[in-house]
């Protein structure tokens, strides 16, 4: 089989498992009136598994609510529409790709890393007064292009993994060498296909190049959160490798050592709780 081009990837995105229709609607409902939003929330409620997972996230200690939320409508009341929407998305996306299609690709380790990055990004966002919902979701989705490539090209992707082991390079370098397309490009295509907001799409596309002009602060947060989670070893992958941290991104966060140690601690705490909900 010849190597896929980015155009091939884009053309095949329809073959990927899709998010539940109601989640797609929620994603594009940014500017809709509140009345429509409550209709959408009702639709989410018809999906019992999705609702249950979302509510368990909403009831996690992260939000410290004194009441136990039992409906999506309540979640919107207490946490707001933005937060609830991001929780629904997190609950939906972690269950939508088939596992075990590509030999050697560890789906569980993939999600452990992604959930870890989501927690680290949220912890950083809180300290830096950036939108925590957006940071969490961007962290969760930063490598979603890998899942797209694994699902579309399971056999060639096994070659990527073998190349990575043999040459001890980063995943992205191995993807370029073997597939010709990397997960950042595939992720950007998927972000567009799934109607992610421009901020989110941009943050995902730039997370390996946060020093680029106009990359934006979200890319900086996700870039550093990614490295932190590799360093914390949260994916528990034998061949784990910490990528190079951009000095520009590191400097932009302007945290001292005491703050960093708190970030590590908070990230590990959140990871324990959130990964239990999302990876049941």
């Amino acid at each position, binding site marked *: 089989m010849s190597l896929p081009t980015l155009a091939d990837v884009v053309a095949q995105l329809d073959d990927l498992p899709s998010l539940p229709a109601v989640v797609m609607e929620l994603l594009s409902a940014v500017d809709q009136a509140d009345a429509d939003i409550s209709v959408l929330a009702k639709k989410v409620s018809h999906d019992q598994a999705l609702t249950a997972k979302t509510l368990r996230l909403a009831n996690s200690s992260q939000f410290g609510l004194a009441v136990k939320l039992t409906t999506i409508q309540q979640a919107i009341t207490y946490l707001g529409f933005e937060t609830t929407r991001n929780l629904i998305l997190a609950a939906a996306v972690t269950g939508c790709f088939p596992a075990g299609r590509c030999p050697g690709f560890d789906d569980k380790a993939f999600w452990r890393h992604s959930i870890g990055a989501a927690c680290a990004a949220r912890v950083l966002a809180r300290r830096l007064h950036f939108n925590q919902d957006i940071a969490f979701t961007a962290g969760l989705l930063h490598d979603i292009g890998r899942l797209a490539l694994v699902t579309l090209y399971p056999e060639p992707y096994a070659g990527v993994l073998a190349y990575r082991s043999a040459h*001890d390079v980063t995943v992205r370098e191995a993807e370029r060498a073997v597939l010709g397309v990397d997960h950042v490009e595939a992720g950007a295509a998927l972000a567009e296909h799934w109607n992610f907001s421009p901020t989110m799409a941009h943050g995902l596309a730039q997370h390996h190049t946060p020093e680029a002009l106009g990359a934006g602060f979200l890319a900086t947060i996700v870039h550093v959160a990614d490295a932190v989670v590799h360093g914390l070893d949260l994916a528990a992958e034998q061949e784990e*490798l*910490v*990528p*190079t941290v951009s*000095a520009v991104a*590191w400097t932009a966060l302007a945290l001292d*050592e005491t703050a960093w140690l708190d970030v*590590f601690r908070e990230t590990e705490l959140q990871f324990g709780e959130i990964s239990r909900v999302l990876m049941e």
Partner: protein
Amino acid sequence: MTTRYQHLALDQVRPGMILSDVLRDGQGAVLLAAGTVLTENMLARLDQHGIESLPILRDGAGGSEAEATDSAAAEARLAYLFRHNDPDNHDDWATGLLRRYLTDYRLGREVQS
């Protein structure tokens, strides 16, 4: 994260060993408190409660030897994780700082402020 406890199968646990964490049954009810010195009677009853393994404090609870082993293992793992980071390459100082802070974190070092 130093690991001062280990999970042992019930039949490997001997009277006199110390429980490192609170022990609950399947319904979440507390069976034994953390720090309990286990007796033969207790172990027999745990069997009836369907408990299969227990978190047990490692030998010599203060165990500086065990701690030293843990620290060495943590440092070795960090060296592997950061194997692409060359400490002498000053252009890569940000990766080096992340490594230093994570080492301090893993070894439980206090920050000098």
